[in-house]
């Protein structure tokens, strides 16, 4: 791995996205619009105040996983992935290059989503907003790195998309969005403790309600970061230069 190759990859991914207005819109605006839709649905109730923070975790996470999967799927389809892996590009250069590019977009995306949820949708945040943005960014980057991990595991282009129901949906169901995690059956609650999205939702809820101190939130943030680092390392180790 070399910094110049990693950064060249980051620059290349950002140049590609710059040429693709629809992906920019999907990345930057769609999570906010979906949060707005949820707020609208529940506008006559107090539900949005309780599920709003989770929505800031959910939509950027899904959108990032999706965009990353699709981008790497295209790398496979067009043969550029195979070409890159026949060149002196470290597998880590590719994974980290993508993570940095989408990480930069995640900062923009999450800032917009948080700002939109607070100012337009009227979500009340008791804790520090910067911390909310920080957790939201980490959560979006988590979506990216899990997308990269899924596509690294995939041996064929179709497997990339097949991983989505396996990796993303259980995290949504067990993340405390449908039912608070402490009300889940014991086995599922333990399982949900091990899933990173649960920790993002917990952290965002804690900041929104001000129920926990910053140290708790930073601890949750650390768990998410550990998942990000783990996914990047595992994805780099799993990517195969040779395919059948």
């Amino acid at each position: 791995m070399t910094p110049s190759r990693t950064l060249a990859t980051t620059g290349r991914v950002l140049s590609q996205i710059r040429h693709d207005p629809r992906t920019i819109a999907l990345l930057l605006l769609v999570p906010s619009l979906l949060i707005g839709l949820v707020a609208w649905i529940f506008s006559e109730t107090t539900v949005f105040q309780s599920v709003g923070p989770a929505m800031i975790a959910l939509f950027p996470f899904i959108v990032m996983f999706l965009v990353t999967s699709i981008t790497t799927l295209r790398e496979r389809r067009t043969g550029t992935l195979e070409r890159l892996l026949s060149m002196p590009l470290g597998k880590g250069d590719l994974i980290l290059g993508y993570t940095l590019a989408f990480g930069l977009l995640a900062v923009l995306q999450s800032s917009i989503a948080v700002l939109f949820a607070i100012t337009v949708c009227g979500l009340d945040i008791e804790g520090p907003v910067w911390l909310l943005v920080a957790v939201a960014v980490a959560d979006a980057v988590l979506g990216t790195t899990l997308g990269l991990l899924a596509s690294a595991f995939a041996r064929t282009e179709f497997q990339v998309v097949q991983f989505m129901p396996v990796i993303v949906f259980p995290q949504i169901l067990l993340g405390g969005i449908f039912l608070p995690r402490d009300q889940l059956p014991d086995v599922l609650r333990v399982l949900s403790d091990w899933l990173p999205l649960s920790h993002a939702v917990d952290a965002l809820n804690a900041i929104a309600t001000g129920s926990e101190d910053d140290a708790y939130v930073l601890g949750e943030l650390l768990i998410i970061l550990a998942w990000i680092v783990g996914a990047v390392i595992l994805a780099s180790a799993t990517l195969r230069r040779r395919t059948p």
Partner: protein
Amino acid sequence: MDTPAEPAVIVADLHARRGTHPVLHGLGLRIPARQVVGLIGPSGSGKTTLMRAIVGVQVVQSGTVTVLGRPAGSAWLRRRVGYVTQDASVYDDLTVRQNLDYFRAVLGAGRSDVARVIEQTDLGASARQLTGSLSGGQRSRVSLAVALLGSPELLVLDEPTVGLDPVLRRDLWTLFHGLAAGGTSLLVSSHVMDEAARCDGLLLMRDGDILADDTPAGLLAATGTADIDAAFLRLIGDDDPDARKEPR
């Protein structure tokens, strides 16, 4: 044909399957250095699988592939082997120059290399265009230009002249021979038999086996035919069942 002592590629007893389908079953061959060697055969004959094995991106079941004296796919080879896949492996949503700039950075080649390969592939007029907006022939030339970056010692080109007009095809073959004269070894696949005549050496392939390994002239002499198409038919015994024999 005088063959340099050290072949660019040596393949021995290679078994490989594409997906679940066995394609190569015990294939062996030598590709001489500093020549343009044509890998000729119908589609489905295993050309691409063989090329992928040489580049080191193909999972092989058994056998050895030695490239420039090293096992295929080893890290040392990654800047010394250029590979052009059948479909242009370039980013459609980047300009020609952005594509070349990125792959140049990956290869660690000098900055002046981009201008050189644009010149070699005659892409100067479209360098600022999005690659996806180019014609199929132009896109495949962008893919070729990427493979030329860093002046690799071995070029593996899978059907690089498909869909090109005769003038461009002639220019590319001139480029290939110019590169070989400069010391590059080239393996060029084609299913167009008339391209075979432009190669220094020929590997005729069918059903995962090498039917013949000869020069174009040697092949015609051995089969007693007037063109490569007829030679191919003679080799597979399709023109006359009694004529099936190995040349040399």
